[in-house]
Every structure is written in structure tokens, then in C-alpha cells.
């Protein structure tokens, strides 16, 4: 009896020990993985501060021997980057506004009003997510060309005001968690749907709307395909387009290229660290519905 109890205790002790060992091992793996994941970003920073001569030395250095902060000034002077930045800010701002307004409006219709054909329409919304974008690319190009909208920002901005399947889906998921009683009560008080949407649902769904705003900021800021197709005029270039042209002009000037890339990525990195919660909530919102 006592022997059995003894071995049992030992067994539990060893399990505890094993669990600790596993945790330590996992932590070590995750730390090394983190270093590996972060190393490209450090490499970008370090390369952007090196002289070309140092970049070409072998073996490469991890920390610049001399810090050439003037690389950034020189990069900015290589083209009208301020203009490109303002262009990108303008487009991104409009796209975010459009996406937030349109998708929260549309998602309200799909989640809080009962009307004939709603389920079929929503099924179509979901199906559209599977259609490859390139199928409609050429017709859209032709459409905008016929309308004389090439070399304007309209093709980049306007579609954002007509909803996007993924965001409608995301916001609808969130709206479904808002109790209908709230809406019924407001209706009893004579509130219209428009009022309920703007005054009750939008304030209640700030986290989900923030997620949509951040995702669409990211999408618009990094959009390359749209500007590549619709914008030819150099003065209208976005940062992404300018970077691609910059790449062609400074083929192996890695310090300038990295400085430019880092400057283009910086707003996204900042927003990520400031609003990380919303990124993760957005992902969880879409993951939770896959069950």
C-alpha cells in the first residue's frame, strides 16, 4: 500500500517536472523564433543606415559601423516623396471613411432588419469572396477608361463606398451579438432604423468598426495593384507605386531602398503597435464563426 502511494507521488512529481521542462523548452523555441521573425526588420533598419561600401563587404555586419542617417534625407530628396505620401494619405483616408460608413450600414441591414431575400443576398455576399479579383479586373479597367476615370483616384476610392464582402461579414458577426431587444425598444419609442443604426448600433460596435478601419487602412495604404493599373501620371503616384519605380531607378542602392521601404511601412507598424487589440479582435471575430 505505502509503496504504491510512494510511486504515485513520485509519478505526479515527475509529471510536474516534465511539464516545467516542456514549458522551458517551448519558451526557448519561441524566443529563438522571435529573433528569427524580427531579424528582417532589424536588417532593414541596419541596411538603411549603412554606406553602400559597408553593405557590399563580406561577411555582412549586423550593426552598422558608421551610422549614415543622411541616407534618409537623400532618399527623400530622390523624388517628391512628400507628394506621394500626401497622395497616399488622401486615398487611404477616403477609403477608410467609405469602408466604415458603407459596411456598417449594409451589415445593419443584413443583421437587424428582416426582409424578403435577405438570406439569399447574404449568401451571395459570401460567395463573392471566392471570386478571383482578376476576373473583374479587365472589365473594371474598361469601365473606368470609358468613364474617363483613369489617372484619377475615383477607381481607387469609389468602390469602398459600396461595401466589401469581408467587412460586411465581419460587422454582421458583431451586430448579431447585440441583443435585438435593444432595437425593438428603440422602435417602440418611434426611432427609425437610420436613427437606431447611427445612434445605437454604431456607438456600440466601436471595436468592430475600429477593426474594419484598421484593416482597410492597411489595405489602402499598401494597395499596389490598383494604382499600378489606374494611375500613370507621376504626380498622382502613391507610395507603393513610387517605391516600385524607385526600385527600378536605384537597382542596387540597398541603403536607399531600405530607407524608402521602412518609411512606407512605418505608419503600418505604428498603427499595429497602437491598435494591436483590434487586429486580434478582428481575427478572432472571423475565427469564431468558422466553428
Amino acid at each position: 500500500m505505502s509503496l504504491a502511494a510512494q510511486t504515485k507521488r513520485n509519478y505526479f512529481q515527475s509529471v510536474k517536472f516534465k511539464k516545467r521542462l516542456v514549458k522551458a523548452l517551448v519558451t526557448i523555441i519561441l524566443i529563438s523564433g522571435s529573433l528569427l521573425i524580427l531579424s528582417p526588420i532589424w536588417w532593414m533598419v541596419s541596411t538603411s543606415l549603412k554606406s553602400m561600401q559597408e553593405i557590399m563587404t563580406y561577411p555582412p555586419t549586423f550593426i552598422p559601423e558608421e551610422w549614415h542617417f543622411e541616407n534618409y534625407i537623400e532618399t527623400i530628396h530622390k523624388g517628391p516623396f512628400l507628394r506621394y505620401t500626401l497622395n497616399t494619405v488622401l486615398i487611404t483616408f477616403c477609403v477608410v471613411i467609405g469602408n466604415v460608413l458603407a459596411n456598417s450600414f449594409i451589415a445593419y441591414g443584413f443583421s437587424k432588419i428582416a426582409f424578403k431575400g435577405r438570406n439569399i443576398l447574404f449568401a451571395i455576399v459570401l460567395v463573392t469572396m471566392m471570386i478571383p479579383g482578376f476576373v473583374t479586373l479587365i472589365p473594371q479597367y474598361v469601365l473606368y477608361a470609358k468613364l474617363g476615370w483613369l489617372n484619377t483616384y475615383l477607381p481607387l476610392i469609389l468602390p469602398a463606398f459600396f461595401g466589401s464582402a469581408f467587412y460586411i461579414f465581419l460587422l454582421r458577426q458583431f451586430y448579431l451579438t447585440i441583443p435585438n431587444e435593444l432595437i425593438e425598444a428603440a422602435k417602440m419609442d418611434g426611432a427609425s432604423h437610420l436613427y437606431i443604426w447611427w445612434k445605437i448600433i454604431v456607438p456600440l460596435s466601436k471595436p468592430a468598426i475600429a477593426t474594419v478601419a484598421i484593416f482597410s487602412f492597411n489595405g489602402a495604404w499598401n494597395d499596389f495593384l490598383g494604382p499600378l493599373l489606374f494611375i500613370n501620371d507621376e504626380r498622382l503616384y502613391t507610395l507603393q507605386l513610387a517605391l516600385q519605380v524607385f526600385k527600378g531607378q536605384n537597382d542596387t542602392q540597398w541603403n536607399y531602398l531600405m530607407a524608402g521601404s521602412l518609411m512606407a511601412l512605418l505608419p503600418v507598424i505604428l498603427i499595429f503597435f497602437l491598435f494591436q487589440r483590434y487586429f486580434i479582435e478582428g481575427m478572432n471575430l472571423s475565427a469564431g464563426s468558422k466553428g
Partner: protein
Amino acid sequence: MQPTLEQKQKSQTNIKSKKPKIPFKQKEQLQGYMFVAPWIIGFVVFLAGPLLFSLYGSFTNFNITSTMDFIGLDNYKRMFTNDNIIWISLGNTLYYVVISVPLTTAGAILLAVLLNQGIRGMRVFRTIYYLPAVLSGVGVYLLWMQLLSPSSGLVNTLLSWVGIEGPSWLADPAWTKPALILMKMWSVGGGMLLYLASLQSVSPSLYEAAEIDGASAFQKFRHITLPMITPVIFFDIVTSTIGAFQIFQEGYVMSKSGDGGPANSLVFFNLHMWNKAFEVFDMGYAMAMSWILFIIILVLTVINLKLAPRWVHYEGEDQK
């Protein structure tokens, strides 16, 4: 749902008695359509219309300046008889899909499982691993072109530490696609986040019960964790397959002036389509190509859906 309907009917009768001309139900219907109207308009103008145009256009010799002459199946025939590049592009695309989708899926699951071991600093790790997934665009491609630079890049430097002489990546036709897959692996944290959310919703009581039965760590993973996250795996595989088939920007930006890299090794299906449509303005042909891609994606998605019941485990009562 039920109380809502009752209330609705109640208020319906209320309003009916006041304003008999517009029945409440109809008003409600109209408002519903008003709210989804922007999407309907957008759907018609930006999607359904273009789809129809593209379908018809794929049977014409449309090149933006000419009239659209109906030429039957000529475009589709030309793909099989008069275009070698399209087969190379299809091969490149399949290569990328077949390797990158399983690798990123497995990598994301592995990372999520590691992060879910109740270790300290989980949130910090999660932030670090997720960061690359939010970075995209030309800046990232330029960064990777530098990282993959044969002599001065980070990747080959790290490889040399473990005694491996790295390949010349984007300059070597055999290594261009592995290079893009490596880049894709960097952002594996996006998928990880999905799996992590799903892992955290698995009830601990299941593991406790298995532990009492003496299940090993691997058995617990194989028989509890894996089945519980199959819905997310399924979703991830379906969406990332669709996404991977449409790879374009990487090939366009990371080859010199969009020419498709050494020995056409980065000419993906969409890049070839792009060149046909906007370089030589063979738009009818490009639209036919887009439908072939659409059909491939559709068939694969349907196969995925058909295969799902065999391995995807749905917790019937677990859904909210």
C-alpha cells in the same frame, strides 16, 4: 428570434391602425432594401456587370480599341495550341500553391500550439509573430529582395552560420519560388492567430479527462486538439488556396521590371494574364484566362467542400 417576431407583429398592428396606407411589414422590407442597397449597387456595377462583360469578352478579340468581334472558342483554343507560357505559368502557380499552402498551414498550427502551452509572455510572442502578417506591399518585397541577396543578404548569412552555402535565390530559376515561399512563411503569424483563438476555445476538461486516461501529449494533440480545430484548418486551407492561386504582386515586383524572373520561373498565371491584358492588350484572351483560373479555383473549392465531411469535425452543440 421568436420574441422579436412577436414584438414586431405587435408593433405592426399598432402602426397599422394609425397609418393604414403603408403596412408596417412593407415599410420594414423597404428599409431593409435601403440598407443593403449600396452593396446591391456595388455588386451589379463592380462585380456582376464586369463578370458578364468578361464572360462575353472571353469569346471575342477585344483589345480595348477595336470592336468586340465574336470569335467563338478561339481564345480558349489558343491556350492549348499557341501559348507555351501559359503552361509554364500554370506550373509555377501550382508549385507555389502545393508547397506554400501546406507549409504555412502546418507552420501556423505548430506556432499556435506552442503559444498555447500556458507559457509566460504569450501576448508578447503573439505580437511579435503576428507583426510580419500585417506588413505587405512593395516595401516588404524590397526588404526580401535584400534579405535574399546572395552575398550581402541576411538569409544566406544565417545559413552560413550553420555551414550551409545558400543558393542565389531570386537569380536562380530553381530557387525563385522557394524564395517566395520563404517570404510567405515569414507572415505565418496571420494564420497562427486564427488557430490560437480556436485552441483557446477548446475546453480544458477534455484534456483533463484524457490525462486521467493516461493519454500522452501526442495522443492528446492527435485526438483532441486536432479534431477540435479542423473547422479552422478547413477554412484556412480553402481561403489560402484561393489566395495562393492569385499570386501576382510578388512575381511582378520581385522580378526585374515584371518580366517574370530568370527562365520565366516567376511567371505566375495572373502575371501572364496581366501581361496579356495590359502589355499587349490582348484582352479577350486575358479574360478567357481569368475564367480558366476561376474554374480551377471553383473546382478545387468544391472538392474541398466535398472532402470536408471526411475530416472536418463539427461540435454540433458547441456553436453559438
